[in-house]
């Protein structure tokens, strides 16, 4: 019962939909570059940074199904490697690649417990990774620069503030699109199928010769590489690196992003990252215009409450996230209910979505 519109819809918002994700990122970038407000461009820049990290985490948690509450640790590795290399006089692109590589190695090590653990226990082991990384980072920071942390000079130092933000938007937009292409190639091809097989049927995966060890460690390393790139870029973007920048809740925010947008969907990661990273800036403005100036003091707190409510509502009511809601259009569900397809048709339907 598939119409052409249905098929198009699935291409646009299905699991391997990356074209729409690129379109969303492109729109964000163009808005950021065209905008006149420094603040708005800054928010959109942070949003693009979050997109990169969320796409990386989505590969690990969504596609490979390995629970991780350690995103902040990999962001920190990226940030500290970039900051340390910048101090040593290394050029920006090399520092960023090194940041990703460092985080990738950390991710490989953090992934070792995944060979024996899964679910909650694996998540707890990633919290252990977080604390170990933060300890090492703290020691490094204390010995290298003291408790205030690293300060990085602005990357586009010669320009006015608005143009600095605009150049950042361009740079981040391009890197995000490259990330989407690479991750889409990885998760759309053989590797993606193997990862999903391990996620959904690990015994069957082993039976047909998929090495869980190789793919899981690979997923941890590659996802952390992407997150580390985001961490390194964030270090340059924010201009400072300190252990205070990487609270435990940062990992939680990234989990919220991919749950909100839709697990195992690049488009979902982008949408989720955009929403979660914009909430703290947008909610105060909305409150401001609705309730007048007096409400501004509680803007970020209200944003946090709202964010918690969104997490609970989505995890309980829409486990597929926003993308899941979109790809199951009500009309289609209704049609299925009305037509009441025989079991065989259900089987082929389920197969074709994969």
């Amino acid at each position, binding site marked *: 019962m598939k119409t052409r519109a249905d098929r198009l819809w699935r291409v646009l918002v299905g699991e391997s939909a990356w074209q729409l994700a690129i379109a969303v990122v492109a729109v964000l970038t163009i808005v950021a570059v065209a905008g006149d407000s420094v603040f708005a461009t800054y928010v959109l820049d942070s949003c693009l940074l979050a997109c990169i990290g969320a796409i990386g985490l989505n590969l690990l948690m969504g596609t490979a199904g390995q*629970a991780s509450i350690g995103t902040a640790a990999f962001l920190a590795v990226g940030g500290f490697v970039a900051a340390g290399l910048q101090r040593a006089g290394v050029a920006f692109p090399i520092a960023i690649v090194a940041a990703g590589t460092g985080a990738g190695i950390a991710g490989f090590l953090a992934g070792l*417990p*995944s*060979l*024996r*653990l*899964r*679910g*909650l*226990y694996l*998540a*707890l*082991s990633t*919290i*252990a990774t977080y*604390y*170990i990384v*933060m*300890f090492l980072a*703290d*020691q490094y920071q204390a010995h290298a620069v003291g408790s205030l942390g690293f300060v990085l000079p602005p990357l586009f130092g010669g320009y006015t503030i608005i143009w600095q933000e605009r150049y950042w938007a361009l740079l981040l937009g391009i890197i995000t699109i490259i990330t989407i292409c690479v991750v889409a190639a990885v998760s759309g091809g053989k590797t993606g199928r193997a990862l999903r097989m391990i996620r959904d049927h*690990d015994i069957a995966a082993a039976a047909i010769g998929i090495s*869980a060890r190789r793919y899981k460690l690979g997923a941890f390393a590659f996802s952390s590489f992407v997150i580390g790139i985001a961490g390194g870029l964030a270090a340059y973007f924010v201009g400072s690196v300190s252990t205070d920048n990487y609270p*435990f*809740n940062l990992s*939680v925010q990234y*989990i*919220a992003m991919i*749950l909100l947008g839709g697990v195992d969907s690049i488009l979902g990661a982008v949408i989720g990252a955009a929403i979660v990273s914009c909430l703290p800036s947008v909610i105060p403005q909305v409150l401001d215009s609705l309730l007048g100036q007096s409400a501004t003091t*509680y803007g*970020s*707190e*209200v*944003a*946090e*409450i*709202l*964010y*918690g*409510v*969104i*997490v*609970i509502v989505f*995890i*309980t009511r829409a*486990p597929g996230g926003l993308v899941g809601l979109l790809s199951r259009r009500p009309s289609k569900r209704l049609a299925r209910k009305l037509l009441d397809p025989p079991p065989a048709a259900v089987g082929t339907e389920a197969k074709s979505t994969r």
Partner: protein
Amino acid sequence: VSEFVSSAVAGVALGGVFTLIALGLVLAYRATSTLNFAHGEFMLLAAFLVGRWQADRMGKDGIAVVLAILIVGAVGGLFYLAVLRWMIGLPEFVGVIATLGLAAILDGIMAIAFPAGSYSISLSWLPSRSVHLADATVSAGQLIAAAVSIGVAGAIALVLRYSHLGTKIRACGQNPLLASQGGINVQRIYAGSWIIAGLLAGFAGIIYGAINSVDDSIISVALLVFPATILGGIDSIGGAIVGGILIGLLQSYTATYLGDQYTDLTTYVVLLITLMWIPQGLFGTRRVVRV
């Protein structure tokens, strides 16, 4: 030697609080298979309530303590009724994420309700003077806190072991289907477990706040208790007590002999070691799925 003894007392005092926290975590886990990431917020909420009450000098401290603990218990129960009750059949991890959402909500509410962000609690039965014990100077408050919290935790463990209610709670934890067939209202027991978890967290928060200070660092204390629950066994009530005291001692000795900054590290290294070699913990049920 005096250093050894005073760190032992500090460790057992800390371990006592950990025991209360771990017991709450274990009860909530046994009820709904949910590791509660909002436990730290539960503790902080109670401590903030008492701290603000004392800062405003509103009346007897005893009432404040009881009220604060009851409020946190109510939050736990409400969270079960409003959210976790509807999660039957969903993966365990869904509930864990929901507690992260609850943590964010409570963080936001507390930031609005307690703008000072930092309070101090003084309880008349937790004196700050020090006493001498085997040629070491130890804080009397810490000794009493250790005794009280381990006493409370032990009493609750005994109740769970020997009372009719305890049997029901354990039955629901082991096999909800058979328990409900046996005429137990499973949902009521689960709600009760979450209420008790909240009460314990509130009590632990107030005691911890009274020995230390009340600010959002209390939240990270609960994160440091996860290793204790895993070490003792995530579904073992006795294990929560043993694990709590062991981790408390470990942190205290680490702080004394290595330095404060090493406590998170050693605690979580113990967690990693436990996860890799005995994931069911010292006293837990052996049902961890290994890959």
